[in-house]
C-alpha cells in the first residue's frame, strides 16, 4: 500500500463512481491549492494575533532563517521522488561547516577553507551515492549510518570548540542584502537555485527519469534509464548543496559549532513531504515543496512572535507532517464507507482510544501540580 499516492488515486476513482455531490473531496487531489489556502489562513490568523507579523523588515529577516532548510530541500525532492531518502543532509551540513571552521581556526584563507568544506561535503555525497547506487544498499540504512558518521566527524573536527571571527566578506553570504533592497543574499540564491531545480525536475529528460525510477524502478531500467548513474548524481548533488547550506549557516551565525543544524533533516523531510511529494516516490512537484517551505516558515515565524519555544514549535510542525498524510487518508476512508450501518465494536474502540488520550492529557497537565498528592497521599 502506497500512502498518499494510492490513497488519493483510490479516493478519486471511487468518488467518481459515487453520485455527484462528493466532488468536494476532489480538492484533496490538488495539494498545492490546499497548501495555498493554508498559507493564506496562517497569514490572516497571524496578522490578527501580532501587529509585527506583516512587517517587511521582519519578514525579510526571518526568511533567511529558512534558507538552509530550503536549499537542502531542493535535492531532497529529487531523492524522494526516486523513492530514496537522505537522512544525512543536516549532518553533512555540520561536517562541512566544521571542517571549514577548523581550517579557518588554523589560519587558512577563508575562501580556501570554504572550498575545502564544499569539497568534503561533496565527498560525503559521493560516499552516499556510491553505497546506494553501486553497492546497492537501501538509502535509509546508508544515510542513517552517514548521519551518525558525518556528525561524528563534525565533533571530531571541532570538539567543544567553536570557529568564529569570519571576515565580513564571507558573512555577507548569510547576512547581506542584495543592493539596497530588503532581499537577503541567501534568499536570492535560493530563488535562483529553486528555479533551476524546478526546470530540471519538470522540464528535462533527467527530471522525467527521476519520476520513472520512483514509479517503477524495474520498468525504468528496461526502458534504458541509467538508474545507477542518476542515483549517484542526486546523492552527490545533495552532498554538495548540504555543504553549501553549511556555509550559508556559518555565514549567517558568524560562527560554527559542531552541533550546527542538528535535527534539520527532519524539517527538510517535513517540508518535502508536506509539499505533496510521495515518500514512496514517483509523485510530487517542486512547487508544492516550495509552498510548504513557505507555510512552515510563516508558521514558525508566527509562533516565534507569540513567544512559543522552538521545541514546542517542532511539536506543531511534527503534528502538521502527520496530519497532512493522515487526514486525507481517513477522509477518503470515511467517504468510501460501504455501509452506514452503526458498528458497536468500532464505536467502542474509537471511544476507548479517545478516552485513553484524554486521560493522558489530563495526567499531562495535572501531574505537574500537587493535585496527585491528595490522591496518592
Amino acid at each position, binding site marked *: *500500500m502506497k*500512502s498518499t499516492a494510492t*490513497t488519493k488515486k483510490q479516493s478519486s476513482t471511487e468518488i467518481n463512481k459515487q453520485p455527484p455531490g462528493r466532488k468536494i473531496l476532489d480538492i484533496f487531489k490538488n495539494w498545492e491549492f490546499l497548501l495555498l489556502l493554508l498559507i493564506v489562513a496562517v497569514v490572516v490568523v497571524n496578522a490578527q494575533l501580532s501587529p509585527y507579523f506583516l512587517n517587511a523588515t521582519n519578514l525579510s529577516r526571518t526568511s533567511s532563517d529558512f534558507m538552509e532548510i530550503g536549499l537542502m530541500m531542493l535535492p531532497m525532492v529529487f531523492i524522494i521522488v526516486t523513492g530514496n*531518502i537522505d537522512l544525512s543532509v543536516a549532518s553533512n551540513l555540520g561536517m562541512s561547516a566544521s571542517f571549514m571552521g577548523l581550517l579557518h581556526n588554523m589560519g587558512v584563507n577563508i575562501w580556501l577553507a570554504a572550498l575545502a568544506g564544499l569539497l568534503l561535503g561533496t565527498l560525503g555525497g559521493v560516499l552516499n551515492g556510491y*553505497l546506494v547506487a553501486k*553497492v*546497492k*544498499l*537501501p*538509502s*535509509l*540504512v*546508508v544515510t*542513517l*549510518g*552517514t*548521519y*551518525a*558518521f558525518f*556528525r*561524528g*566527524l563534525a*565533533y*571530531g573536527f571541532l*570538539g*567543544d570548540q567553536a570557529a568564529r571571527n569570519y571576515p565580513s566578506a564571507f558573512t555577507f553570504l548569510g547576512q547581506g542584502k542584495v543592493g539596497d533592497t530588503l532581499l537577503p543574499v541567501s534568499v536570492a540564491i535560493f530563488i535562483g537555485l529553486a528555479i533551476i531545480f524546478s526546470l530540471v525536475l519538470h522540464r528535462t529528460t533527467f527530471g522525467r527519469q527521476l519520476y520513472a525510477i520512483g514509479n517503477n*524502478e524495474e520498468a525504468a531500467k528496461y526502458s534504458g534509464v541509467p538508474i545507477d548513474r542518476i542515483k549517484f548524481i542526486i546523492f552527490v548533488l545533495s552532498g554538495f548543496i548540504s555543504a553549501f547550506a553549511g556555509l550559508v549557516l556559518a555565514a549567517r551565525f558568524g560562527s560554527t559549532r559542531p552541533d550546527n543544524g542538528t535535527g534539520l533533516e*527532519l524539517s527538510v*523531510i*517535513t517540508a518535502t*513531504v508536506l509539499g505533496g511529494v510521495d*515518500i*514512496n516516490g514517483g509523485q510530487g512537484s517542486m512547487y508544492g515543496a516550495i509552498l510548504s517551505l513557505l507555510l512552515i516558515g510563516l508558521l514558525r515565524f508566527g509562533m516565534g512572535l507569540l513567544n512559543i*519555544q522552538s*521545541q*514546542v*514549535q*517542532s*511539536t*506543531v510542525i*511534527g*503534528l502538521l*507532517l*502527520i496530519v497532512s*498524510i*493522515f487526514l486525507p*487518508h*481517513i477522509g477518503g476512508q470515511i467517504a468510501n464507507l460501504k455501509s452506514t450501518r452503526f458498528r458497536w465494536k468500532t464505536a467502542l474502540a474509537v471511544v476507548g*482510544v479517545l478516552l*485513553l*488520550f484524554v486521560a*493522558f492529557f489530563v*495526567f*499531562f497537565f495535572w*501531574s*505537574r501540580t500537587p493535585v*496527585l*498528592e491528595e490522591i*496518592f*497521599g
Partner: protein
Amino acid sequence: MTNQAPEYSSNQSRKKFNLLDIFTRFREVGIIVFILILVVAVTLRAPSFLTINNLTDVLMNISILVIVAMAQTMVILTKGIDLSVSSMIGLVSMMVAFVLRANPDFPVVFSVLLGLGLGAILGLFNALVITLGNVPPIIATLGTLSIYRGMIFYYSQGTWINSFELPQSIKFLSKGRVLGLPNLIYIALLIAIIVYLFLRYTRLGRNIYAVGSNPDAAEFAGIRPQRIKFIVYLLSGIISGFAAVLWISRFESAQTNTALGFELQTVTAAVVGGVSTSGGVGTIPGVLLGALLLGIIQNALTLIRISPFWQLAAQGLLIIIAVISDKLLSRRIVRTK
C-alpha cells in the same frame, strides 16, 4: 525503500564446507570473532579492560540499550522503524520523575506501571497513525520524535529533576545487586529472553517474521499485517515506557534531553546484529551481540583515550561497515552456492 531480490546464479555444485558459509549463515559467529579481536587489541593497549569491574560497567551501560533494541528489532522485522523511542523514553521519564518528586512515597511498582501505561499510550498513537492513517513508519515516527520531544519541553518548562529530588527506592531498582551484579543487567537479560521466546515460539512472534518477509503472502495465509504492525508499535511504546523508568533509576535524573539520539543506537544495535531493514531477517542473540559490540567500542574508546567526540563517528562507521559486509557476504554466498 529499494530492495534488490538476490540474483540466483545457475545451479553450480554446492561446496561441502565453506568458512564463508558459516559466517553468513550464522551472523553471530562473525560478530563474536570481531568482538574477540577487539577485546584482544584493547586489552593489549589497556589491561584494565579485562577486569570484572570494567566488564560489569560495559554490561550496565548497554542494559537499557538491549531492552529498547528488543522493541526496535520487532519493529524492523516488520519492515518498519521506530525513531520515536528516544523521545518516548524522554517524555515518560520526565512525567514519572515529576510524579516521584511530588510523591516521594510513590511505590516503585506503581512507577513501573505508570511508565508502562504512559509508554503504551504514546505507542498507541504511533500505531494508530501508521496502521489506520497509512503513514509510512519512518515519516510517522520522525514526526512523533519531534512531537514527543517538544512535549517534554512544554511539560517540564525546561526544568530538570535532579538526583536528590528522587526517592531512594527508585534508584535501588537498577542499582541493587544480586550475586554481585546490578539488577539492571538481570532485567535486560530477562527481557531479552522473553522477547527471544516470544519471537521464536509463539504464533504472534512467527507472524511478525511472516509479515516482514512477505506481507502479501502473510495476508493470503490469514495473517492481518496491519494488526501485527499495530501490536509491534504498541509494544515498542510499552517497552520504551519501561526503559524510561529504568533510565530514571540508572541516571537518577530526568532532563529535557534525556535519551536524545538514543534511537540511532537502538537501530545500530539491531542492524549490526544482523536484522535486515528490508524485514523478516534477524535474531535476538545477534542483536544482543550487536549491542555488546557497541558497548565494548564505547568503553574501549574511552580506555585507550580517544576523545569521546569521535565516538559518534565510530558508531556511524560501524553501521556502514556492518551493512556493506552483509551485502558483500550475501552476494558471495549466492555466487558460491
